C-alpha cells in the first residue's frame, strides 16, 4: 500500500490559505508555488511532512532574494517554510481560537461598542501605502497588525469581542501561512463551491452526497451504474469511498458511467491521485445510446476478428497501428455489450438533469433486486415527479425524498451560535429499492381489488 498520509512529489494537494480560500496545486519537484500576497514556497521544502500540516512562510531578512532580473520584480519572493505547531488559521467555518490574542493584552477595550457607530476605514489611520511598505519590509503579520492597532484611533473603544474579530480579520489578511491538505472529495467540492461553481456540480452539498454514499450502500467490491453531471465529482466521491485514494487497492469495485453526450465529462478526476490505469480499470464509460441500443455481438465479430498476438506483433508500423485501433474498437464494442446487457448492478446512482421520470425506470432495469436506486436533484419538484412515477411501478419499493442540511456553528467557547449566514441549497435525494414483483397469486375467488395499483395495495399494509 502506498503512503497516503504524507505530502509526496507529483501529487495534487489542496492548500488552505489564511483568507479561508482554497487552492489546488500539483507538487512538481524543484519548483516553487506562489500564494500571491501570502508568499511563495519551494515544493521540495514540504515533501515528506504529514498531509494536514500547517506551514508558515518566513523570509530571512539578512539575505534578500538575490534575483535582480527586472522581469521578476513583481514575482512573489520565495520564502522558507517552518512547521507551525499551533493552528492559527481561525477558519471561516467558525472555529476561531477563543483565547484572547496576545496583541490585545495591553490594549484597552470598552465593555460595549456604545461610542462606536461606524467602524470603517476612516478610523484606521494607516494608509494602504504604509501597509504595503510594511509588507515589503517582510514584516510578519503580527508586526503589521500591532502597527495597525497603534494607529487605530477608535480601537480602544471597541469591545474585546470586536477587537478580537478585527484582529483575526487583519491577521488573516497579512499572515503568511498555509495548510497542505489531502485532496479529498469533500475538499474538492468545497473548493468548487467557493469558486462559485455550485451550478456546475448541481448545487450538491457534502452532507447530501454523504447520505447518498451510505443509502446507495457503496462498498469496495460493488458494481455501480452511475450518471454524473457534476463533471466527475460524484465519481470521485465514489472512488474515494471505495478505495480511499489507494491506487494499489486490491478491491474489485467498478463504476459504469453513462453519459448523454458523445463523450463523458469526468474532468475533475484529473485532480485525483489515482493512476490512469487504476481509473481505466475501475471506471467505465458508455453513452446512453450504446447502453440502450448496444451493438449486436455477431455484427462486431463479423466486422473484425483479432489475429493471434504473435501475428499482430509482426505487423508493420502503419499496419500495426491500424490493427491496434480496430482491436481497441473490437474490445470496446464487446465491453459495451457486457456492461449494457449482461451486468446486474449493485446500485443505480443518478445525478443528472435529464428528466428523471423517463430515465430512471429504464436504467433501473439493470439493477439487481434488493439493491438501492438513489437519485440526486437540485430541486425537490423533480424528485416529486419521479416518485409519483415510481409509485405506480411495482419494481420500486418505497421511493422517498430526503433533505439533509448541515448547520455549522461559530464554535468558540462563550460565543457559541449557529453561523449567521450559510449557503442555501444542497439538493435532495430520492431513495428506493429495486424489487422484483411477484406474479399475481391465484385468487381463491375473483375479486376486484386484485387490480388495484401498487400505491393502494401498499397502503393496505
Amino acid at each position, binding site marked *: 500500500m502506498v503512503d497516503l498520509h504524507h505530502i509526496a512529489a507529483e501529487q495534487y494537494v489542496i492548500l488552505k490559505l489564511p483568507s479561508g480560500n482554497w487552492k489546488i496545486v500539483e507538487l512538481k519537484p524543484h519548483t516553487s508555488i506562489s500564494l500571491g500576497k501570502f508568499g511563495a514556497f519551494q515544493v521540495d521544502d514540504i515533501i515528506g511532512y504529514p498531509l*494536514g500540516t500547517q506551514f508558515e512562510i518566513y523570509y530571512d531578512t539578512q539575505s534578500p532574494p538575490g534575483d535582480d532580473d527586472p522581469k521578476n520584480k513583481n514575482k512573489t519572493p520565495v520564502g522558507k517554510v517552518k512547521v507551525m505547531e499551533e493552528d492559527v488559521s481561525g477558519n471561516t467555518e467558525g472555529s476561531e481560537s477563543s483565547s484572547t490574542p496576545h496583541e490585545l493584552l495591553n490594549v484597552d477595550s470598552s465593555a460595549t461598542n456604545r461610542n462606536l457607530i461606524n467602524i470603517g476605514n476612516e478610523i484606521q489611520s494607516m494608509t494602504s501605502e504604509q501597509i504595503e511598505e510594511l509588507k515589503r519590509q517582510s514584516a510578519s503579520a503580527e508586526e503589521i497588525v500591532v502597527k495597525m492597532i497603534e494607529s487605530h484611533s477608535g480601537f480602544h473603544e471597541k469591545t474585546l469581542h470586536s477587537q478580537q474579530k478585527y484582529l483575526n480579520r487583519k491577521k488573516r489578511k497579512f499572515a503568511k501561512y498555509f495548510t497542505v491538505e489531502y485532496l479529498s472529495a469533500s475538499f474538492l467540492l468545497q473548493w468548487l463551491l467557493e469558486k462559485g461553481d455550485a451550478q456546475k456540480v448541481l448545487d450538491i452539498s457534502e452532507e447530501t452526497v454523504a447520505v447518498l454514499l451510505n*443509502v446507495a450502500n457503496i*462498498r469496495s*467490491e460493488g458494481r455501480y451504474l452511475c450518471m454524473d453531471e457534476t463533471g466527475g465529482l460524484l465519481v470521485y466521491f465514489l472512488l474515494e469511498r*471505495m478505495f480511499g485514494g489507494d491506487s494499489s487497492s486490491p478491491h474489485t469495485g467498478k463504476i459504469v458511467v453513462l453519459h448523454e453526450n458523445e463523450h463523458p465529462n469526468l474532468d475533475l478526476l484529473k485532480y485525483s491521485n489515482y493512476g490512469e490505469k487504476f481509473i481505466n480499470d475501475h471506471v467505465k464509460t458508455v453513452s446512453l445510446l450504446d447502453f440502450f441500443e448496444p451493438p449486436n455481438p455477431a455484427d462486431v465479430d463479423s466486422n473484425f476478428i483479432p489475429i493471434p498476438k504473435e501475428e499482430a506483433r509482426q505487423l508493420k508500423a502503419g499496419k500495426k497501428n491500424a490493427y491496434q485501433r480496430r482491436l481497441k474498437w473490437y474490445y470496446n464494442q464487446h465491453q459495451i455489450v457486457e456492461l449494457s446487457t449482461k451486468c446486474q448492478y449493485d446500485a443505480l446512482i443518478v445525478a443528472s438533469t435529464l428528466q428523471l421520470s423517463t430515465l430512471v425506470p429504464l436504467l433501473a432495469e439493470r439493477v439487481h433486486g434488493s439493491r438501492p436506486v438513489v437519485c440526486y436533484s437540485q430541486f425537490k419538484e423533480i424528485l*416529486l415527479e419521479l416518485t409519483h412515477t415510481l409509485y405506480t411501478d411495482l419494481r420500486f419499493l418505497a421511493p422517498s425524498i430526503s433533505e439533509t442540511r448541515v448547520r455549522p456553528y461559530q464554535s468558540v467557547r462563550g460565543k457559541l451560535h449557529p453561523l449567521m449566514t450559510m449557503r442555501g441549497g444542497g439538493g435532495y435525494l430520492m431513495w428506493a429499492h429495486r424489487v*422484483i414483483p411477484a406474479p399475481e397469486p391465484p385468487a381463491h375467488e375473483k375479486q376486484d381489488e386484485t387490480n388495484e395499483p401498487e400505491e393502494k395495495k401498499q397502503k393496505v399494509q
Partner: protein
Amino acid sequence: MEEMEKGTNTSPMNSSISPFSYRDTIQEGDLALVWVSRDNIKPIIIDAKQMFNTRYGSFSHKSMIGKQYGSQIAIRTKGQNRFSFIHVMQPSPELWTLSLPHRTQIVYTPDSSYIMQRLNCSPCSTVIEAGTGSGSFSHAFARTVGHLYSYEFHSVRYEQALQEFKNHGLSNITLTHRDVCSDGFTVKKSDPTSHLFPEGASQATINANAVFLDLPAPWDAVPLLDEVIAKNQKVGVCCFSPCIEQVDKTIEVLEKCGWTEIQMVEIQGKQWESRRQMVRTLDDALERLRDVKRRKQEGIERRKQMYDAVLKDDETDGENSERPQPPKTKFNPFGKGTRVREGDANYQWKQVTRVEPEIKSHTSFLTFAFKIVDKSKVC
C-alpha cells in the same frame, strides 16, 4: 438486537460470508430482512420449515428460497381473500437501522453519513467508536472502513453486540468491553474483547485515524486518545452530544489536548412524502354556486311572492306559511360529501410534497476536531 431478545433464532448458518456483503439469491440459513411496510421491517433467518406471520397472512420461507433478493412474495389471505405481500430484502446497514425498534437510541443515517464523510472514511481508515450502543453505526462503519475498534461499557449490551457482530460476519470489528472514560482505549490480551491478537502480541496496534465518541462525557475520553491514534498523520474526531453544555466542555478539552479546526455542526434530516392535492378551479367553484342558486331561485321566488302576498293581505300570517326547501345541488366538481381517493382519475391533481408529520428536529451536536500528533518529516 430487540428481535433476538424475543428468542427468535437470528444466527445465520452461512457464517462464512457476511450477510451484509452483496448476495443475489435467498438461501437456507441466510439472514434476510422482511419488508412488511416502511415502519415494519423484520430480520429473519431463512429456514425452510418456518413461516413468517403477519396480520395480513403467513408467508412460508420455502416460497422465498431460491428467489432473488428483493423478490416480492405474494399470497392470498384465506379469510378475506385479499392480495397480500412482503418483500424479502438483503440487509444493508441502512435497512438494518430502519429495522431497529424506534425507541432504541441510534445514530440516524443523516448523522452517521455525514460523520463518515467528514472523517473521510474508506478502506484505508481505522476507526474508534465508543460506545457501541445499538451497534447500528458499527454496521455502517464496518461496511466501509478497514478496521473498527468499538467499545461498549455496558456488559449486557457488549454481549449482545458481540453475538450480533459475529452473526453478521462483521469480522473487521474489534469489540471491547470497556469504560473508555476511565480505562482508555488500549486493548490488551487480558481484556474482554473480540480482538484476534497476532502470535506473540499482547496488545492490539490500533493507530486509528478516525474517532467517534458517543459518550455522555467525551471530555473524559479525549485526553486518553493520544495513546491509540495514528501518530504521523492527520486524525479526526467527532463527539456526539445532545446538550450544548456538553459541547462547551468538549471544546474546552479538545483545545487543551491540542486538537485543532474545532467545529460543531448540527445535521437536519427531513423526509418528504409525495402527495397530490385536488385542483379546484375558481370557475368550478362559481359554477357550483350558480347551480345552488338556480335550485334555490325557485324557492326564493315562491317565498318572495308569499311575503309580497302577506304584505298586501293583512289577514295572512307570514310566520305560518310553508317555506319550501330547495333541492340539493347536482353539480359537484370536487366530489363534496363523497369519499374521493387521492389521485382519483375523475379529478385533476397537483403533485405536492409534505414533510413527515413529526420531524427529528435534533439528534445531537457533532463536534469535529483534527490533530497530527507528530509533524515530523518522513523520507
